[in-house]
């Protein structure tokens, strides 16, 4: 299961994303857009660890959605998060772009916590979160 640190109490300012079991190893799902976020939040599991990224490709400053279809965020080999606008590839666990138009730039990480029931929450925008 997840090695993401669990918090004993999810505070009410956290936004519920999903249950940790919904995101299996190597899989990716998009949630939202949640209240206060301008884009969906992408949740993935890599080497057992959950990571969350804003669904906003850094190629254009406004940040544009990356899937080609609902939840279709990966390249064909399923090794990288991919922006299906111009095929930029991002490392799943660091968010770093390693090929394509935003080479060297990074996706915006969304801080998440998993409570003792396995529910995954994102920080509300404004307090460690973002807009």
């Amino acid at each position, binding site marked *: 299961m997840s090695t993401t640190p669990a918090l004993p109490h999810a505070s009410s300012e956290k936004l519920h994303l999903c249950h940790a079991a919904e995101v299996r190893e190597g899989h990716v799902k998009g949630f939202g857009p949640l209240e206060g976020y301008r884009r969906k939040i992408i949740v993935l599991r890599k080497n057992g660890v959950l990571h969350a990224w804003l669904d906003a490709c850094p190629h254009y400053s406004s940040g*544009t*959605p*990356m*899937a*080609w*279809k*609902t939840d*279709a965020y990966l*390249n*064909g*080999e399923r090794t990288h998060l991919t*922006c*299906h*606008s*111009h*095929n*930029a*590839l991002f490392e799943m666990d660091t968010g770093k772009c390693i*090929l*394509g*138009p935003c*080479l060297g730039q990074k996706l915006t990480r969304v801080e998440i916590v998993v409570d003792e029931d396995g529910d995954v929450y994102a920080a509300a925008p404004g307090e460690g979160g973002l807009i």
Partner: protein
Amino acid sequence: MNIIGPDYLVFGVDDVAAAIEYLTAWGLKPVDVTDKGGLFETLDGTGVIIRHKSDPSLPPPLPTSNMLRQQIYGVRSAEDLDAIEAELGKDRRVTRLSNGSIELKDDHGFELKFQVTIRRELDMPAEKINAPGAPAQRGPNEIGVWEDMPALPRTLSHVVLFVPDIDIATKFYCDRLGFVITDVLTGAGPFLRPKANDDHHTLFFIRTPEYMKGCEHLAFHMGGPTELMVAGTRFVKKGYQSFWGPGRHKFGSNWFWYFNSPLGCHFEYDADMDKHDDTWVAREAPNGAEASQIVLFEYREKWSPAGGPPPGAKG
């Protein structure tokens, strides 16, 4: 050199099944398509060819992450192929294939092929509108929209390329192949029209760093703005990702709606593009949000202002 426009674009994809699903949902017709890929046609026979990126039958890839492998242009006749071969044979290798078509690279290394066009002549009405002061285009009892109205791409319209050097690209297509500049977005690049096509553009360049070289989007002409919005709405409802639009461009006047794709570039539905001839004088405007569109909308779920006030509201 009577170049008409792109007959086919060829892509080497990393997920053939995803591309097949996408192109079919886009409204293209699979022709001889297997799990290795194949051709996807518009109504006039132009379209997209896909193969897995490791398929040895594909032309070599660009040195970037872009999946475009070749642009196949249609020309009017075999004499046009001879003329292109004579001109471009002066300074590069031009390969003549057994079916008479020719292959070569442009000055940025994009793979090109020229063939006598495969496009079939279409005989279909454009979208018809009624307006006061003008004769009715739809007569009595002829309705404009219905739930399952057809909205399929009619032809491959244009391709937009990311290129590192606008001058090199423009000189190649204009000076060597007879394209004409219709308008220029300064800071991005020129819109080009080949000699045997009166569409505002079949080719547009956007200046980018070398590591982005490739296809930004390809576009398909629809029967009108209503078809464009119906096709796009159906596409969104199936879960595909809108990128920009629907809206209407200024230069070219065409309606647009762009989508992400598993082919590593955008796909655009377009409709009602301007036509030009050689008397047209190119306009120029600085690239930006204002210059690129007259209107822009965004998809939203269907909604209607039905129902009365909530219970308990004061009357």
